């Protein structure tokens, strides 16, 4: 573990990514405490340009709502959706991949056909259809993003398990009569974890992009303000008020960038063999 942090902190992208993520998380957690008012409330005249009033540093939108407050509350939604939907995708993908890789044969065939099928369906289009049919809410959004993002996890885990299960220590566990689930959970999966962690960090980034795109199209949770929704709402007035679309977009860009950098840092730290290439 100590070794891991040491190499993680040695990679510049990992460090920058961690700083960005910590900042985003603290904004999401503590920010709303500084802004007790709802971000939906009208605080000033509409279309107030940014940097004119200290109380509303980033100006107001078409309905006089505080853009800065919206961005802070939006951080909550983006990070929450990103993390939870990735978690759900892992909960679906890891068991499927592990079973396919461990049992092989017909089980593997069936599970992989199933996975490939989901991978062929255009993911964003499926997410749109699912959210539209289930009605937009934070639950349907998380569920749809999870549904479209688990297949790569299953494929990755399957590959790892496939190569690990012929190892001697696994064979030893089989000989000592351990149950299949015990072997998968205690012997194989812990050793297959590091590439999954790298993938998961990139998946959170993709999930944030997906959520913001859905919200932009009007498929966000109607009760929660999010960055994508703000950009979507500012789209029609972009000629009069650039700041309504620019700032929330920057927030998305920085968070996604941070998570991608963490992914690279993790990759360097967890798979040192791979990362040395190209340096």
């Amino acid at each position, binding site marked *: 573990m100590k070794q891991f942090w040491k190499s993680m902190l040695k990679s510049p992208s990992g460090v920058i990514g961690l700083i960005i993520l910590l900042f985003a998380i603290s904004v999401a957690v503590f920010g709303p405490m500084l802004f007790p008012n709802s971000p939906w409330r009208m605080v000033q005249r509409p279309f107030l340009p940014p940097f004119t009033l200290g109380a509303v540093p980033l100006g107001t939108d078409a309905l006089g709502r505080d853009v800065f407050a919206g961005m802070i509350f939006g951080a909550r939604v983006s990070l929450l959706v990103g993390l939870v939907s990735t978690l759900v995708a892992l909960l679906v993908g890891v068991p499927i991949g592990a079973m396919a890789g461990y049992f092989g044969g017909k089980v593997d065939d069936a599970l992989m056909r199933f996975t490939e099928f989901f991978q062929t*369906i255009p993911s*964003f289009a499926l997410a*749109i259809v699912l959210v*539209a049919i289930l009605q937009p809410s934070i639950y349907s959004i998380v569920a749809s993003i999870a549904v479209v993002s688990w297949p790569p996890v299953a494929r990755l885990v399957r590959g790892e398990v496939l190569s690990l299960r012929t190892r001697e220590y696994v064979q030893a566990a089989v000989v000592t009569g351990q149950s299949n689930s015990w072997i998968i959970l205690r012997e194989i999966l812990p050793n297959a974890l590091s590439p999954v962690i790298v993938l998961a960090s990139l998946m959170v980034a993709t999930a944030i992009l997906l959520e913001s795109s859905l919200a932009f199209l009007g498929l966000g949770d109607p009760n929660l303000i999010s960055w994508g929704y703000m*950009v979507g709402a500012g789209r029609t007035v972009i000629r009069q008020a650039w700041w309504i*679309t620019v700032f929330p*977009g920057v927030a998305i860009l920085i968070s996604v960038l941070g998570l991608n950098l963490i992914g690279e840092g993790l990759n360097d730290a967890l798979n040192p063999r791979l990362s040395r*290439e*190209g340096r």
Partner: protein
Amino acid sequence: MLSFVAQRVVKGVIVLLAIVVLNFFLIRLAPGDPAIVMAGEAGASDQIFVKQLREKFGLDKPLPEQLFIYVKGVATLDLGFSFRQQAPVAKLIGERLPATLLLTLTAFAISLTLGILFGTFAARFAGTFLDTGITVFALIFYAMPIFWVALMGILLFSVTFEWLPSFGYETVGANVTGLAHAVDVAKHLIMPAMTLGLFFMATYTRMTRASMLEVKRLDFVKTARAKGLSDAVIQRRHVLRNALLPVVTLAGVHSGTLIGGAVITETVFAWPGIGRLMYDALLQRDYNLLLGVFVICSAMVLIFNLITDLVYRLVDPRIEFAS
């Protein structure tokens, strides 16, 4: 070669069939009784009309039979009727398909060309400022949501500089034909295609760079060097050709994402393709149209995957078609 293609086509048809079945159940999941929803959309809701609709669309029949009717309909390109637009779904999609193909294929060509070019440069000058610059740019474009890139493009090139039109497929009322028309469409195409292409360009740049650096260290490159081939020839004929394999695979995997991006791009730029159609269907909760577009998108991805598979085999002579 031929048997390989046939095999893949059969496989694709099976997947498509599965998607159509999935689609059927998604329609069932949509809120409301379809007949009543349809009647409402048509602007009439008396009992007789609802009953007629139920019979017309076979909604009074048992579920398996309904499924059969639906699959048969899709097979004959009957994707249902859009009451909002008062037209068959297949016709609406057919009208919009060319614009989407123009947009996605242009974006794809731009992203692949520029991506491979930048990736090659970055790998060639690995460790220099040029490499760092390209890598940082790729990282940033990779993190930008497509809808935001689109809006920033409009803000910069339409609002500030007034160089490019911000929406549509052609200038309304311009009434130009021939070359002038093509130029007009091209002007409208630049921004949407660049927007859609930039994200994928970033991916291909990163992939090409990583892949080239990996191939460069392999033994056959040393052999080529030992044979006294010039650096340029080694780069082009040996390194690049091998390094492109994962890029081609990635391009196939990305076709679905490309379609998804087209929905966003077409929405922002009011580009009259099936992505915009999907957005309109979404706004009006026109489920027949929404799911019709979804089936066609899936079919496009399958076709695209088949093509990349073929290209992959052309680029990599080690893979034989017989398998």
